[in-house]
């Protein structure tokens, strides 16, 4: 006879597995929408009804709330209808944890990418690699992105490579976007930088606590 506890555990595991699959698909769709510069679709994957929904982008700061995320996409990220522009990010190395209560999840992907941009009247081929960490919320019907952080690793001229060209790893010394809050972390590769295991791998957890908010930046590698 199968006892109740065993049934509850199986049910939890089925829900977690289904969530794992749903979250992989959600991030795949979001990445495709970003690559194809589809503003409304990108926004539809975020939990915009939450006041603390956020998107942190390289060293441009944290954009919290619907209005700020829209501004980030419009003013800094998207290049719709621009001839020759191309962004092609990919998701690899998935590390995902779904809370035991299946209400939240944490995920991290390593993201190789290529891009083409216009600069000084020429179109340049770029490498753009990074890591994407995110918190997810289940809103009762579907999984949504709650907090997303894109950690830039390299952004460089394809011809020169990531050692020779570090001109694009940091933002220019110009005012930050008025809707951005200070960056929480930015440590792209350069000949002088030291890699330090951030963003961190998510670890199993029961339910999302306030202390979980900075899991991506954890320097404690022992747990």
């Amino acid at each position, binding site marked *: *006879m*199968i006892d*109740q506890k*065993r*049934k*509850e555990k*199986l*049910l939890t*595991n*089925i*829900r*977690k*597995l*289904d*969530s*794992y699959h*749903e979250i992989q698909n959600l991030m795949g769709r979001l990445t495709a929408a970003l690559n194809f510069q589809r503003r409304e679709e990108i926004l539809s994957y975020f939990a915009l009804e939450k006041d603390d929904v956020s998107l942190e982008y390289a060293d441009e700061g944290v954009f919290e709330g619907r209005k700020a995320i829209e501004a980030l996409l419009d003013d800094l990220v998207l290049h719709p209808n621009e001839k020759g522009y191309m962004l092609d990010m990919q998701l*690899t*190395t*998935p*590390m*995902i*944890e779904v809370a035991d209560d*299946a209400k939240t999840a944490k995920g*991290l992907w*390593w993201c*190789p990418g290529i891009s083409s941009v216009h600069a000084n009247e020429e179109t340049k081929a770029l*490498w753009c*690699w990074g890591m994407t960490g995110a918190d997810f919320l*289940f809103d009762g019907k*579907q*999984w949504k992105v709650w907090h997303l952080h894109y950690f830039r*690793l*390299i952004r460089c001229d394809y011809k020169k*490579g*990531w*050692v*020779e060209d570090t001109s694009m790893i940091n933002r220019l010394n110009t005012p930050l976007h008025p809707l951005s809050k200070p960056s929480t972390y930015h440590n792209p*590769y*350069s*000949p*002088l*930088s*030291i*890699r*330090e*295991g951030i963003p*961190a*791998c*998510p670890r199993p957890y029961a339910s999302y606590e306030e202390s979980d908010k900075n899991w991506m930046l954890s320097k404690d*590698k*022992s*747990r």
Partner: protein
Amino acid sequence: MIDIRIEDLDLLSDEEFEETEALIEEELSVWQICNLRGQAAIFHDDQHIGEKRRELKAVDYPGFDLEAELRFRNTAVVDSLEGNMLIHPLTTPVIEIDPENKTGRATWWSLGIEGLSKYRERPMAIISAGMVPGVHVKQNGEWRILSGAWQRTTKNEYHAGWIDSMVPTNTRPQISMEEDRRRLGKYAYRKDEIRRAVPCPPGKDSFIKYPLREDMDWLLDDLDQNTVE
């Protein structure tokens, strides 16, 4: 999310329940092994060998050579971490779990980038492609890496490309190209050779063909298939 309630599980016979439970446990193992290897990739890039880290290897497994592992781990191969980077993203996973959910055999492919500065010189940008084969076991309820070393396809200076450049594994003392060829570069790309099909991804029948956990021949299943006499 999937619409299933605990009452739905009451409809299963005990046998059906146990079959479902085993299937779900197997799928969870595949997921956990992916997470484990992701964590290993982070530690590999991080390179802070002196820091206390969560153990990822099956160090309690009978016969595990902990002494050799610690010797390897605690030997610095660069003078400074500045400018060094080892990004080996994991793609193309093939993972098979044994019927008892105690062993996981897997292979990944990887197209990566590196920065290498051995003696504080300006780093060399490197393209690093290869595979990650591995055997994983459960230790105290948690999946650990039992065996499996990076298998290089290319490790080339970025501008020179993989036809003309092969950078040996960075060791101290530096091993020769011949020695490197016997180790991680054993199956590495060479323009004057037919490529050998190693490692073979684990087949569905991997644990029937190779029931012993220590038997690593599954990785060589396709070894000679590309070699035409």
